Every structure is written in C-alpha cells, then in structure tokens.
C-alpha cells in the first residue's frame, strides 16, 4: 500500500524529471552580465565561460530572457480631515515569455587554459520600448495620461468611493478649500459626544429627521472635477503617482552539436 502510494506520488511530482534531463551530458555555463541595471535600448555587456565534458562539441550559445513589468499606482485626496484617503496598488506580472534574444557562435580558439574553459565577452540587446515611465505629483493635470495609466473608470470609482466615506468636516474642508461655498455653517451641526466629552460634527437633520448628506452638497460634489479632488493646495501638485518599469530574467544557454543545452544561472536585470 505504502509503496503504491509512493509511486502515485512520484508520478505527479517527479522532481528529477522537473529539474534535469536524465542521461544527457550538457555543456557547463558560467556567465555574468556587467550590470544589473541598464538603460532600456542599450546593450548589456557580459562575459561567459563554458566547457563540456561530453564527447559532443559545443555548437553555439544563446541568450534568452522574459520580461516582467512592475507597476505602482497611488492616488490620494488631501482634502480629508477626518481620515486619510489613498488608493494604492503594486503589481508585478510577466508580460512576455522567455525567448531567444541573441545567438553567439562557438569559437574553438577562445579556449583559456587558466580557467580551463572557453570564454568571450559580448553584449545582448534590450528594447527602447521598455523604458520606465513615471508620472509623479504633476503640477498640471493630464486627463489623457490619467485614463491611459489608470483606466477609463478609475476617476469615477475614486470619486464615488471617497464620497461614501466623507464626513461633514471633510466636505467642509474640501468645499471651502476649493471655494465652492463661502459659508458652510448651514450644512454642519455639532453635538456633544457623551463618551469623549468632546463635540462631534454632523449634518443637520432633514425634514424626515435624518442626518444625511444635504442635497446641495451632493449636487456640488457631482460637479467637482476629479483633478480638484486630488489637488494638494499646500504643495500645488496633484496627488497622483504612477510608475511602470521592466526587468528581464536573462539566461545563457550553451548548445552542443546534438542540440543538448546547458543553462547558466538566471540573472535579473532592471531596465530604466
């Protein structure tokens, strides 16, 4: 019973099969890119050492890499006085699968006796399209950029979510700060908080006796542009941050004449 269970387990999780190709003697590769950060569009210099213990001659080498995107977004409204409202997100996603980027011929005369390996220096390319993008606390608001980086519905969702959380003091700070009202007294009451001994600020009761957000304030809110909601009057910038950058996970493969490949260690390189 135990043996059969073990066999079943091996069938699903055969670690040997996942990690090595049994019975193939592959070339050995050691490589080192010169820098772990490069400007997008520039070539990455590297040096490589390789050899084989098999009878098969080495044929050529290849650099492969995938592309991972790191994206961060943060938007906040500085008008809130009773709480901090900030929406942030961080994502790291593979955007392109690992694929062959460049190929290098094997030169038998590149043998170096001191390291007992073939060795050479070369470069591999990166794409200009992968330059990092940042849009941080701009002094002027760009609606097109906002939609491009955050999506079509983001601004509406942000405004709606914020509205649901706003207290009378928040409306007061925002409306007076944006010069939307001259006087807020008609829309705010204070009531004694028996627990703290202090005063709480609430909306006046409506005709039904409920303390809901007055319709005037609701109507005004719908007219406020999103850009005003995130405008920081103290610093004169818009509280929006967007950044997108890419990194590659690169590897060197050395192929022998039979097409058996030996892999180096994956190197992560950030593009800027």
């Amino acid at each position, binding site marked *: 019973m135990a043996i059969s269970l073990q066999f079943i387990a091996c069938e699903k999780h055969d670690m040997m099969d996942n990690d090595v190709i049994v019975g193939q003697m592959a070339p050995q590769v050691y490589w*080192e890119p*010169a*820098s*772990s*950060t490069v*400007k997008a*569009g520039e070539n990455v210099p590297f040096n490589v050492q390789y050899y084989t213990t098999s009878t098969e001659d080495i044929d050529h080498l290849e650099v492969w890499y995938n*592309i991972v*995107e790191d994206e*961060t977004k943060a938007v906040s409204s500085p008008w809130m006085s009773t709480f901090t409202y900030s929406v942030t997100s961080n994502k790291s*996603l*593979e*955007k*392109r*699968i690992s*694929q*062959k*980027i460049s190929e290098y011929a094997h030169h038998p005369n590149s043998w170096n006796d001191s390291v007992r390996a073939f060795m050479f220096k070369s470069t591999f*390319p*990166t*794409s*200009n*399209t*992968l*330059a990092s*993008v940042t849009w*941080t606390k701009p002094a002027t608001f760009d609606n*097109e950029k906002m939609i491009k980086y955050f999506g079509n519905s983001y601004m509406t969702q942000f405004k709606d979510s914020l509205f649901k959380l706003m207290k009378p003091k928040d409306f007061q700070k925002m409306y007076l700060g944006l010069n939307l009202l001259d006087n807020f007294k008609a829309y705010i009451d204070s009531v004694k908080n028996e627990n703290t001994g202090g005063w709480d600020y609430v909306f006046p009761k409506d005709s039904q006796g409920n303390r809901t957000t007055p319709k005037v304030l609701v109507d005004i809110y719908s007219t406020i542009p999103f850009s005003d909601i995130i405008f920081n009057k103290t*610093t004169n910038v818009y509280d929006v941050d967007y950044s997108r*950058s890419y990194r590659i996970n690169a590897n060197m493969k050395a192929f022998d004449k039979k097409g058996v490949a030996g892999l180096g260690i994956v190197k992560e390189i*950030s593009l*800027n």
Partner: protein
Amino acid sequence: MKIFNYLLTIFTALFLYSCVDNDPVIEELPNPDIAFNYSVIDAEYQIDYYVGANIEFVSTSVAAGECTWDFGDGTLATGETVTHKYKKAGTYTVKLTIADAGYQSKPILISDIKPIVSPNKTGLIEVISTSVGFNVELPNPEKLTEEYHWIFPEGTLDAAGKPIATFDGKDPGNVTFSNVGSQVVTLQVKLGGRQLEDGVIKVPVAYNLAVPTLYYAVKGGNIMALKLANNPPSGMKINPFDMGTKSGQHPLNILFNDTSLYVLDCGRQFTYVDDKDGNLGDGRIIVMSKDGAKVETMMTNTGAAFNDPYYGYIEGGQLYFSDRNTGLSTIGLKERNKTLNRTDYPYYVQNATLGYYGQGLSYGAMNACFGKINGVWYWCKTYNGNGIFRFTDADILKIAITGNGVLPTSGIALESMTPKSFVWDAKNSLVYFTLYDTGYEGLYRCTLAQLNEIGSNKEKLVPYRLKLANGKTVTPVTETGKGEGSTGEFIAICQLALDENDGCVYFGLRSGDAAVKSGLMRYNPASGFIEYVIEGVDVYGVAVNKTKSKLF
C-alpha cells in the same frame, strides 16, 4: 422505529442540501503537455514587439491534435504555426487549445511605436556653455505622416540664446541648458494623426565648476545625485540627477567609497517579524558606479529577515554591515554576487561579545548607525540597551558571554537615549548626532568632550540642539502608523553625511511636525542653521563623494 425513520429522512435531507452548496467547481487547468513560443519574424525591430509586427506563434506541444489559437484581441487562427499582427498596444493573453487535450495560455506585451531621442553629442554637457542637438529615431514602416512637438525644461535656450519652451518640427536645432541636473526633454509625436507614447530623454547637465556630489536614496524612487554647488550664478538652478537605479525597499544607509556607491537595503521587512522558518530575508547590498552606468550586486540575503543589511561603514577595503539587532559583519569591497551566510560572513562583533552585555546591552539590542571616531567604534543602539556603545577592537571578546564581562573603557555615550545616526567632522573635531527621544528629537552638534559630559542627562543636550532659521528643530515621525516602524525601529533620521569641504551635514527628514516640511536638509555651519536642500522628498540614506567633479 418511526422516530428512527423520521430522523433518517431529516438527516438525509440535510445531507443532500449541504451537498448542493458544496459541489466542487470543476476548473479546467492548463495542460503541461501543451506549450508554445512566439517571436517577431520581421527583419527589423525583432525585440520590440511593435504594433503591426509580424509575430509567429509555434506550437511545441507534446499533445497531438488540431491547434486553435486565440490571440486575445478577438481573433482566432488554426494550425501548428501561425502568424498574427496586433493592431493596438497592450498586454494580451494568447491561448493555444489542442482538440481533446486542453489548453495553455501565455502573456504577450505589444508596444506602441515611440520616438527614440538621444543627444547628438557625446562627452560632458556643461551648463550654459555646451550646445547640444538631438537625434530622433522613429520606426515608421507604413510611411505615415509624422508631427513632432518638443517640450523643453525651464532654462533651455535656443541657438540664438532665446528661451525655448516648446518647438514644433522634427529638428529644434541646438540648445543650451541654464540649469544643472537631469534636464528632461520630451518629444511628442503624432503618427498618422495618432498620438504615440512620449519620447523622453534626461540630459545630464554638468556644473561648470568641479564640486563634490551628494547621493540620496528616495523612498519608492531612485538613487539621486546633487552637485554641492555653493553660491551658483544668479538664476542657475542646481537640480538633482536621476541615476536610474532603484533605491530599493529600505536603503537606510548608502556609503560612497572611491568611485562607487554602496547601497544597503534591508528589504521589505525591516520591522519585527516572527520569521519562524528564517526565510523572509530579501535585503541586499548593491554597488552603483558613481555615474550610475553600472550596478552590481555585492550580497543578497535569502535567510532570516533580521540578517538583512541595515547600516554600514567602510574602512580599509572592508564594508562593515550590521543586521537588525545582533551584530556587525564584514565583506571585502570587491566581492560581488555573494549570498549571506554566517560561515563566510561571521559576526565581527556581537552584542554578546562586548563586556556591555548584561550591563547595558541586552539580547536583541536594536542596531542603528555605527562607525569609528579616532580608532574607537561608536555603535548606536535604540532598543534593549540604548545609547552609543563605544569599544575598540581589543574589547571584542572571542566567545559570546551572558554577562559580567569587563566593560570597555570607552564607555557609553547618550546612555538611555535613542541615537539613530551620527557623523564625525574630523577637520573641526565635532560630532553630529540625531535622537528621536520625545521632547528631545533633532540634530545635535558638539565636541567629544561635550558628548561625554552629556552622559545620560537629557537636559544637558539643550545647548547643542540645532535649529532652522525660524527657530524650529527637526522632529522625525515617531507616531506609530504614520511613519515607518515602531518603538526602537523608527526610520527617523537614519543617516548623516558630511561634506568635508565646507562642513555641511546632510540628512533626510520625515517630519513629524506639521510646521516643518519633510525633505532633504542640511546643517550649514556658515549660516548656523538647518536649511532645506530639496523640500517634499522622502529620503533614506545619504552619502557624499568628496572628490570634486563637474558631473560625477
């Protein structure tokens, strides 16, 4: 028996009802026997994956059967090898389905065409005097109409010496820059009437005199550099250079030595964590060349989070680095791509290898900045034994103790306080240090004799507390939830850097005082006040390259 039947019926009904809700959702998982790859097969721009590129998709599946491709943009194709062109930029999910076998899906990023801008001049671009133009490369295989719009930074002058803010056309001619630092030039292009992604170039504009360089690590941003130009010509702004290297998660200390900047990043988790399996470490030390062109990894930590590199000091070809709360280790400055382990990098000194242990220092005493003054180690501790614990190499015990050791004669400075950082001004024989003790937060300056005189008496600190011109002191955030960290581990003013040329001391402040803005600051002995260098930026470590240069 009837009761038994009723109960059986009820239980059966309940059982069946519960089964309705708990029916497993059958998820169709990708089949590992199905695989594919893709590549651009055009003669040009093969690694760019532009909109309109011919992309070949090849099934490399073990599974046999008819291949159906879903390119994620609403189009399908069949066959083992197919080609496809995307019409819009974006990320798509490509799905290969093989009849009766299953599917596999992979992402593909399609990039929009964008202009590539570069300066037409190599070598130093010096403020005011260097005239520079721009090369533009725009992939345009379909020969569409091109419309160019340039945006220049403040202080840009055209060939006639007149201010130029924008220019319409492909070639704006040569320009000069009136301000130092990364000058951002933006090129907006419409191709066939469609607005492309902006082409952006950060032109590194050098100062016209050789001066030292300050480096600083911005929270969530990049390592920046600033020319320390005192009294630049009227109207000339000294802006920072974006070095293009990420600061990392928590770069509490950065150290400049020779031609390189060493960035000690203690990783995502710098506060307390119950790291049971000892594998939450992600800190590292990177080495950036002074011009940012080359970045190498010196060491990474994949073990316990508390072993991440927090603070550092360089002397004699060695970088000494501390962990969170146990000790200091060393690594040779030329080492690269090493993994931290205690066999290769044993502790040079630990809490428990000093005579202070059990007599001031306790288990897990929290580390802060450290270094040497006149051959004596100064080791700041902010929790479980507070103060600056001083010792010489001869005081370090070979075996860890549990107490009752011989106390080092150098003694403890600022005992029971929270010294976070310090720097020694050897030329003027002054020590600068920071505290975040409530009511005594700030930056201080005194002689070593005065430091000894302060002892553990906070009232004696008062004469040495430095202020802004408006009389305010600097108070870092120590309110849990507002800054970073909690008791003993607040970021506070986590590093001080001295410009030996003029004695200015630089630091980053995350202000906890609403009346004082956060930013990059300095104490200027010439004015006698703390001054803003750059307002509104959140800074971790700071370092000065004292070798004077126009650029780096």
